[in-house]
């Protein structure tokens, strides 16, 4: 069993030190609740994967490639710490066989709740420049269907 909570908030202010707030956009956290994973033992790593490092190395087939540890991806979070912009190309249930492509500039965050790997095409990340990009990726998924 793994319980996942993802929280997002936007703080907007008129001064750079955030002392004069214009507003706070606070999204109620998404909570996955309990999920039963087949088998026992090291349950959690099969439900949640955290990657920190070179973002392009993530796309070399693990963990979402041909030897995927997931059968279903429920949510994917990508944070690009730069320096290059990265593009992520992925399929979704909503878009069928077509691919979504998003640019994620340095510093930006993407939270994607509809990543479909059942067609055998894992998300692919590539950088726009010669320096590459580091950052963090969370993958929440399931090993059953």
């Amino acid at each position, binding site marked *: *069993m*793994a*319980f*996942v*909570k*993802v*929280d*997002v*908030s*936007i*703080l*907007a*202010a*008129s*001064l*750079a030190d*955030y002392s004069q707030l*214009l*507003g706070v*956009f606070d*999204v*109620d956290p*998404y*909570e996955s*609740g*309990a999920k039963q994973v087949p088998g026992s033992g090291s*349950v*959690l790593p099969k*439900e*949640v994967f*955290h990657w920190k490092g070179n973002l392009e190395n993530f796309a070399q087939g693990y963990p979402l490639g041909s030897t995927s540890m997931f059968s279903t991806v429920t*949510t994917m*979070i990508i*944070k690009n*710490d730069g320096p290059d912009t990265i*593009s*992520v*190309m992925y399929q*979704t*249930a*909503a*878009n069928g066989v*077509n*691919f*979504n*492509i*998003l*640019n*994620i*500039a340095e*510093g*930006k*965050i*993407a*939270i*994607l*709740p*509809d990543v479909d790997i059942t067609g055998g095409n894992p998300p692919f990340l590539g950088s726009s420049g010669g320096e590459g990009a580091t950052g*963090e990726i*969370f993958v929440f998924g399931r090993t059953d269907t």
Partner: protein
Amino acid sequence: MSTVYAKVKVGVVVSPNSDYSDPDVDRDLDPYEVQSEGFEWFRREASTSSETFVCSQFSTIDLLVIKNEDASNYVTITHRSAGNSSTDNKHRIGPGKFLVLPDVTPSATTFTHQASGAACILKIGVLGET
């Protein structure tokens, strides 16, 4: 045009316990900070028909957050991006889930939402240049 200083924070907690005690992961990502010209948020109903969400008051969008407040239906979001040029991107946002997009083309004719089984309430936040 005044400047809006915005900070976007994302936190992730993973625990074997329903009260999130003794977490295996408790991580706040480095915030995304941006100086924009505009920040707006909306509470909006998405019907089961495809409807256009107008955000053409923005010339560029730095970040778009959409939360599906519905408990049982998903919402399909269609939008264009710099990465995908004139091809549509499509996402389903499941009940209670949210979508954070760093790459949205603010064209009034290419940004739509459609609920699956019944109308859903969406909470939408937009940071961008006006």
